[in-house]
């Protein structure tokens, strides 16, 4: 969140290079864009023509009729009505064309951003909240596509109207034209000064608004703490300070709008007044027809529209610049873990060994989270990683699965540095079960099938049986076709972990990684699963992060990790007899598990 606010801080100038990049998203819809410009030109033609018609009618009426013939107004009226109809058609085509651009460009930007996100390394995700990333693909995309479709349209129309009206005025009478057009620089000046003020005030509003939302969130989530601390009064006072600030900036923003619009109208009224005064004199002198004067008067009043529109659009674009920066930032983010040209599909289909050779890893330069780490694992071996949270256990398995790459040293798969192997080849051979067992909304069957897209129903059910998930699946309405809810929220964490385990089992991976994969399954059930897991792990390489003793005890090698270093290494027997760190962890865990069993059995 802080980074978001920081990016909003840039009051910055208009960034042309950035907008050019964003503008590229319109290119596939060149035809619609050109159509839009043509439509805008037609509309401007109509806008310019209507006052002309009015002027002609006035002239027709006021010119004394020498022949005494009746006044023929119909051609003018037809012109009017024709123009109206053309305008309506233009409005229709405006919305259709801008609609094409708006809806397609937003979908395109989203697609581009989404596929970029699929390629980006996990380190990118570690530094950003999901909500922040979501906002890039939702509100930012919407803002950008809106600006690209409608902002462009408004600018094209606004500029063309001003130019069109000016040209028409010059053709009619250059003296009056010069006079009336003196208001244009005034309008520009006015629009620019307001536009900057509007920009600043709308940003301030947005920022305060997000603080208010955060306060509501906190007030509701922290309601128990508030009550027990008797903090209601203090909280309300702090909240009122925020809403007070919101009140101030919103009123300021609306007042700016409130001044701006009458100000533009008044400046245009200057044009009208000038035209009436000098034009009237010219009419009286017989140099200009009354109709022409009427046309001028209408033109002068008409300039208010495009001036307001341009100012608003420019504000909108500058407001959207923050969105553009964030989206482009995502699209430009370098992908650090990907296949380069030198990768070779290995002849061997099976992973026999994984070797960590002097591996070091740092999240941020200078912050080493794993120091010179060496380990060789052969097919059939189970490695257990134990130790305090944040010690580096997860880093090791993330390096093994190439979610991260070593900062120094190498990870060798079958003796080959894995950066010269295809990413997909490696990851297809891995099965990873995480502590947070993320499920996708859908049925249990679909979730297990995620591990192997072409798995048969029998394979899915077998995997579920193997991991003991069937015990609870059978109690559900719909069994395997029961919906798990959004993020699996219809199930308990323990149940989700079992499904996640079945999902990995059905994939039949050669390397199995379990990161606290059964932490929320109760102790009794875990023992049953352990038997299944032992069966699953047979003949594979496996890395297990766990605190449950049953999982750790049988491992071939136990590594005790603390602050990025291996502090103890060996099997259960050796480490117990060493009476060191592992011994301490083991005795604590032993007591805790037994207590848990007792508490639950009562």
């Amino acid at each position: 969140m802080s980074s978001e606010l920081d990016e909003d801080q840039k009051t910055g100038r208009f960034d042309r290079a950035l907008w050019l990049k964003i503008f590229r998203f319109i290119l596939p819809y060149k035809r619609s864009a050109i159509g839009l410009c043509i439509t805008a030109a037609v509309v401007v033609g109509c806008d310019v023509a209507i006052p002309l018609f009015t002027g002609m009618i006035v002239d027709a009426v006021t010119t004394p009729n020498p022949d005494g013939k009746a006044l023929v107004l119909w051609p003018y009226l037809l012109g009017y009505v024709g123009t109206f109809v053309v305008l309506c058609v233009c409005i229709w085509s405006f919305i259709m064309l801008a609609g094409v651009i708006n809806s397609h460009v937003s979908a395109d930007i989203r697609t581009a951003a989404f596929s970029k996100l699929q390629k980006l390394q996990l380190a990118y995700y570690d530094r950003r909240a999901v909500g922040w990333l979501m906002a890039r693909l939702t509100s930012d995309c919407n803002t950008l596509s809106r600006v690209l479709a409608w902002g462009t349209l408004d600018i094209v129309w606004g500029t063309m109207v001003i130019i069109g009206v000016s040209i028409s005025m010059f053709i009619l009478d250059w003296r009056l034209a010069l006079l009336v057009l003196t208001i244009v620089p005034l309008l520009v000046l006015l629009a620019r000064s307001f536009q900057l003020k509007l920009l600043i005030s709308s940003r301030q509003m947005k920022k305060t608004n997000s603080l208010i939302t955060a306060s509501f969130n906190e007030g509701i989530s922290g309601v128990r703490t508030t009550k027990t601390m008797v903090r209601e009064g203090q909280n309300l006072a702090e909240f009122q300070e925020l809403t007070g600030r919101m009140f101030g900036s919103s009123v300021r923003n609306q007042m700016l709008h409130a001044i701006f619009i009458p100000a533009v109208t008044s400046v245009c009224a200057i044009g009208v007044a000038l035209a009436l005064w000098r034009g009237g004199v010219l009419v009286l002198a017989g140099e200009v027809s009354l109709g022409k004067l009427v046309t001028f008067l209408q033109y002068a009043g008409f300039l208010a529209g495009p001036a307001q529109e341009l100012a608003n659009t420019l504000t909108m674009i500058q407001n959207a610049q923050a969105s553009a920066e964030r989206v482009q930032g995502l699209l430009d983010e370098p992908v650090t873990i990907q296949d380069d040209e030198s990768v070779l599909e290995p002849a061997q289909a099976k992973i026999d060994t994984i070797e960590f050779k002097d591996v070091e890893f740092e999240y941020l330069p200078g912050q080493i989270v794993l120091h010179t780490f060496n380990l060789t694992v052969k097919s059939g071996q189970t490695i257990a990683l134990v130790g305090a949270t944040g010690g580096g256990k997860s880093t090791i398995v993330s390096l093994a699965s190439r979610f991260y790459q070593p900062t120094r040293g190498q990870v060798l798969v079958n003796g080959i540095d894995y950066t010269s192997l295809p990413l997909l080849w490696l990851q297809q051979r891995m099965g990873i079960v995480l502590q947070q067992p993320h499920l996708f909304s859908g049925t249990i069957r679909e979730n297990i099938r995620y591990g192997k897209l072409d798995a048969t129903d029998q394979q899915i059910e077998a995997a579920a049986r193997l991991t003991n998930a069937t015990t609870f699946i059978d109690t559900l309405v719909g069994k395997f076709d029961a919906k798990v809810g959004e993020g699996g929220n219809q199930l308990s964490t323990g149940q989700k972990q079992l499904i996640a385990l079945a999902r990995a089992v059905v994939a039949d991976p050669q390397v199995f990684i379990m990161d606290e994969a059964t932490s929320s399954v109760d102790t009794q059930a875990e023992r049953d699963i352990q038997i299944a897991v032992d069966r699953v792990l047979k003949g594979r390489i496996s890395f297990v992060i766990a605190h449950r003793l049953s999982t750790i005890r049988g491992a071939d090698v136990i590594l005790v990790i603390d602050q990025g270093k291996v502090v103890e290494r060996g099997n259960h027997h050796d480490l117990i007899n060493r009476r060191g760190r592992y011994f301490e962890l083991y005795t604590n865990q032993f007591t805790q598990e037994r207590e848990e069993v007792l508490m639950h059995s009562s």
Partner: protein
Amino acid sequence: MTTPSIAKPSDKKAALLWSLSKGHRKLYLFSGLAMVAGSLLSYGQPLIVGAALDYALSAQILSEQTNTQKESRLSLLVVNLMGGPDFVRSNLYLAALAALGITVVSGVLIYLKSKYAAIASEGIAKDLRDKLFDHLQHLPCAYHDKAQTGDLVQRATSDVDTVRLFYSDQIVEVARAITLLLAAIPVLIYLDPILAMVAVSVLPLIVLFALIFFWKVQGAFKKLDEAEGQMTATLQENLTGVRVVRAFARQAFEEERFARANTLHRTLNWKLFKIMAVYWSVSDLLCFLQMALVLIVGAVRVESGAISVGTMVSCLFAAGLYIWPVRQMGRILTELGKAMVAAGRINEVFEQPRETTAAMDLPALQTGRLTFQNVSIRRGETDVLSDVSFELLPGKTVALLGPSGSGKSTVVQILLRLLDPDSGRVLLGETDIQTVSRKSVRANVAAVLQEPFLFSKTVNQNIKLGRHSATDQEAIEVAQAAVVHDSIVRFDKQYETMVGERGVTLSGGQRQRLAIARALLREAPILVLDDALSAVDTHTEASIIEALRSRRDHNDGAQSTLLIAHRLSTLRHADEILVFDHGRIVQRGTHESLLAEPGMYKKLWSIQSELEEDLERETEHAGVSSAAELAVLP
């Protein structure tokens, strides 16, 4: 949520909307007056220009014709006000200045209208936000346990914003359209009654068309919303599950899944644009039709000599002023429906009863004496607590032990009056806590709850939530007692470090210890630790317990402690240990007395000996460790 009282929902919503405007109505009145005056004056410019055209400029050509027409009396009046046709003709700049002046004055009035409306509507929004925030704080925990935070936040933010728009834009726009119309009609009738009738003839059709249209397309809007929801959900699942996606190398599958949702959204979005294109062009056509009718009928009447050209132009101009605001009415009326829905959703929150409160306060206690007398509470068919009695004396510690769900936390909730018992009494000192205000009870208890909540403030501010007036030195002292000081000083900004969403992420243990520090700062006579040390390691736990004991002895031993924990090492020194099961106290006594009788406590204690046996076995087998397993060592 569905209370029987919402039988007539629309009335209630309207009542809420009306009651919210209380205290701001005067501003709306000013705003309305400014708007009426401003709108009337906005007719002034065309009138002056028209009069000047009619009498001063075209008079020399058409004087005979125009002067005979009674309909032009208004223009004549205007011209006469400015000094007569001849004067105006020779001093045209005066007419120009008048036209400019009247526009500026009307502009100022319009500005005042917007200003007052802005102050009023933003004031209403502020009041509404404040009221909601305070109401939410005072709703019972039982309500918050059931309600979803996201839903409540949405009501408090986007629904409030919808209601705000109702006050800031919609009311104002509707009033403006009506005013402009009402101001124009007399002018039109005065100018030419027949043309006036023509000038409003299509208006009902325009409004009706908009109403029917927006009513019809609501389905399309809803579908689009659903598609958007679907797309967002897919996106969110992908992002939160990114590790799973990578673990199974399912990027391509995910891109396809997202593309489906994205394409559906795009299609529906595009469809809506197509519908809107029809709406805007047709409604514009209707508006143009209205103008064209005025023009054609006007032309006919000019031709027949019934009215002057100036009159016709004025009529056209007047129609042009109101026709566009009136067109917006259809859309605004539909949006009014949204405001009603939002108001209804907000009202649902307001209709939830607040926690009850008593007039009398419990005086601040000097010593912590707590008595539970036959307290029972049922929820549905199950006894959450049945017949629980115990006494906690000043300076003493009572520990509660038992499986999760056995009622330990309910005891704490009753003590804090977050929950009221069905029967039995709870006394603080000599006072039944049911007879005094909830806040005064809570003020006498310093509680650390199971999952402590920290606010997005600095460490220092979070600790001082316990007591606002505390000094920095006191904050450091309690942090030291809670064994969290050393962790804090390792942060970059030490006590000024932000915690929560916008700051450092604390570990569970650090959070718990910070919450303990916060509670210690309260200096309340009763300290409650509800499983408050579960994420703290055994060693640290021991130091905290020791620090608590020495603090208590230091403070005359008046503070008493209610302790819930699951580690025996934490509990064993308590003066009395209560073992809970299924809402009842099944065993009570000291560590020694409980060890002497059969029961859960004894069983728990025997784990220690099991461990020793287990270790014994390992040591016997020590010699057999296999060489193969050691081969992987470097």
